[in-house]
Each structure stands twice: as structure tokens, then as C-alpha cells.
């Protein structure tokens, strides 16, 4: 299925590479026709943007979104690596990591 999306993902791994936490926020935009909308141009309701509801789940210019997590760990954990990625899902099977930030925290 083709739904263009961007995503912000956070992954936490311990010193052995075991994944302890994954959080994902997705950004997408939809234009959808509902029964009570006007009919689309030449009857093509699913293709006429003026006959559709705009559902904006994207990130607009100047806007900042964030993920904050507090993760208590098993006693004896020596370190964790937190990795954040910004990704684009162009279509099914075509995903690109656009930007990455990483930090290792030791205990």
C-alpha cells in the first residue's frame, strides 16, 4: 500500500545490543472523500482535492515535535545507546533514513 509518511523513531539498546525500547511517531497527510462532501469534478470524488477532507497529520514549517521517555533499566545495566532517526517511507519497501542522532549513556 502506498502511503507516503515520515517518521521519528527512538530506539534504546543496552550494552549487548538488546533492544529495550522503540517509540515511533508518524507524519502523514490524507485527503479523503466522505458521503456528505460535495461530489468531485466529473464524478471523481476520490481525486478532487476540493471535494475532500484534508487530514493533516504532518509537521508544518517551524514546528517542533518531540519524544520524551524515562526508562528505568535492569539493575546491573552498564550502558545504553539511544538512537533517534528521522525517516521517509516513500512507498512500501522503500524507506530511507534521512537523519540520525545517537548518544551512549553509561552508568
Amino acid at each position, binding site marked *: 500500500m502506498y502511503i507516503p509518511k515520515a517518521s521519528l523513531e527512538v530506539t534504546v539498546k543496552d550494552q549487548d545490543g538488546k533492544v529495550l525500547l522503540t517509540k515511533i511517531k508518524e507524519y502523514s497527510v490524507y485527503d479523503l472523500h466522505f458521503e456528505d462532501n460535495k461530489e468531485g469534478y466529473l464524478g471523481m470524488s476520490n481525486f478532487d482535492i476540493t471535494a475532500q477532507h484534508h487530514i493533516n497529520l504532518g509537521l508544518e514549517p*517551524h514546528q517542533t515535535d518531540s519524544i520524551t*521517555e524515562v526508562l528505568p533499566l535492569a539493575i546491573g545495566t552498564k550502558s545504553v545507546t539511544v538512537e533517534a532517526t528521522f525517516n521517509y517511507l516513500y512507498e512500501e519497501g522503500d524507506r530511507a533514513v534521512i537523519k540520525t542522532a545517537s548518544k551512549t549513556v553509561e552508568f
Partner: protein
Amino acid sequence: MRLFFTLLAIVLLLPLTVSAEPAKTIDELVAPYDSSKCAECHEEAHENWAKSWHAKSVTDPRVLRAWRTFIIQGLDASPQAKRSDLKHICFSCHAPVTKKVEITDALTEQIADLIITAAEDKDAAKRDAATKELGKLNIGCLACHNIDGSPDGNPQPNTIYGPGDAEDPPHKEEFGFETVKAPFMKTAGFCKNCHHGCPPDMPSSICPTLWSSYEEEYLAHGGDKTCQECHMQGEDGENHRFPGIYEKDFTATGVDLKLSASSTEYVDYFKNQVHPTVVMNVQLKNTSGHGIPHG
């Protein structure tokens, strides 16, 4: 898919076509706007353009597949529509030569058939042949430097419109073309025709597009860059590759990603235990000129 019908308004504003006789073949259609000679002098711009999405405005696989779906699920499925409506809905941006050269219904239907063949025919040779034929319709030099280059919407024949940076280009001596400086081409409004396409008096609440995100969320909140300042960036500011979201390095310039992570301890009072704990915050800021993902 969302742009299909934002183009209706443009159709109403089209200037008169240059040819009295409607084109019956793709070769007849594109001949008056052949851009092949431009590469003789503008080698770098041509090389960059060849890698751009403009150079695949018809034949990019995603465009072909989306167009196939629109033809089958939209035009064919609606009793009110017909395949020849493509020329009113899609061609002015995807194949802008049709703004200036009239095209028969029969040729429009032939192009629709080629799109479906190129998108989904099981025979790879047929797909390739259809794609090659459709490739003649892709946006070429004269789409911007003539057809859409005149600020008054009335481009003159045998005229090259340019942003005004070049010193006395020899278009007249070499090809018999006049050169007209059109600083308008450096403005965001130049891109608006195709990357917005809604009627001027229609609010974005009815017709939300890439442009309305740029205008209402970027410019209105302090942004001051034009489309070209990001999407034509290059050493000379004239990158005709028009990098976009499919280029990772370019896309990365449109967001800031900040990560902080700190160690602390969590006291589990109920179990009398102290756990190592990490506190993390990730911030993603859209520093581009329009919404993500969009367009």
C-alpha cells in the same frame, strides 16, 4: 494523487495555443518546443535537468502508476468523465507543451493508453517502448523558459525567458530566438502554477496544497526563502536538478534533529531497589518551507 484536481483553474487561464491545427501525433505535439539544441551551450544545466523530476514529469514510474490509477479508477469509473479529459486536468503541468499546442481527443486517448501500457503491461518491451514515446512529453527547457516564463502569461514565440543573470546570450545569432529577462522566474510565484494550481480566490481550507503550506505556515510565520533558494541551490544558484525529498542529503537539510539523554536513578519504593535510568528527549524541527510529508 492530491494534486490531480488542483490544476483545474489553470485550464481556464490558458493562453491561446500557437497552432491552429490540433496535433495528431506526439511528434507533432512536441516539435514546436524542441529543447534539444539548448544542451549545446547549457551543458551543465542540461545534465542536471536530465536527473531532475521535471525530466520525468510523465515517465517517472511513480507518476505512471499514479496516472494509471487515475485513468482506471477515476476517468473510466465515472460516467461523466472520459479519457480525453486528461488534457484538461493533467497535461498542463505534466506535459506543458499542451498549453500551447492544441491536441486532439484521439491523441489524448492514445497517450492514456500509452500510460497504462508503460505502467502495467506484462511485456517489458512494450512498457519500455511506451515509456520512450511518452518521454517526449516530459518537461523540457522551453516549458519554463518560454511557455511559463512570461510574467504576463503571454509568452512570445521564438523567445527565451531567463531570470536575467546571463550577459547577452547569443540566442538571436545562433537560433533566431529573442532573449527576455524575466526576474519573475526567481520568485516562488513562478512555481505556484503547478505546485498549487487552485483558483486565486479559493481558500486553502478548500484547496490545501504544498503551496498553501508554504504560504500559510512558512511565509506567514517568518520564513523568507523562495522555492528556488532551496530547490535550485548550487554553486551558481541554478541547479536544474531541483533536488527534493528523494535525495536524502537534501531532505536532511529540511529538518533539525536533536537528542539528549542523561543517566539518573529510579527508586522503586515498593521493592526497595534502585534502578539505573535513562531520560531522553528527541526534538524534530521542520526547517523546510512546507509541511512534511507533503506534495
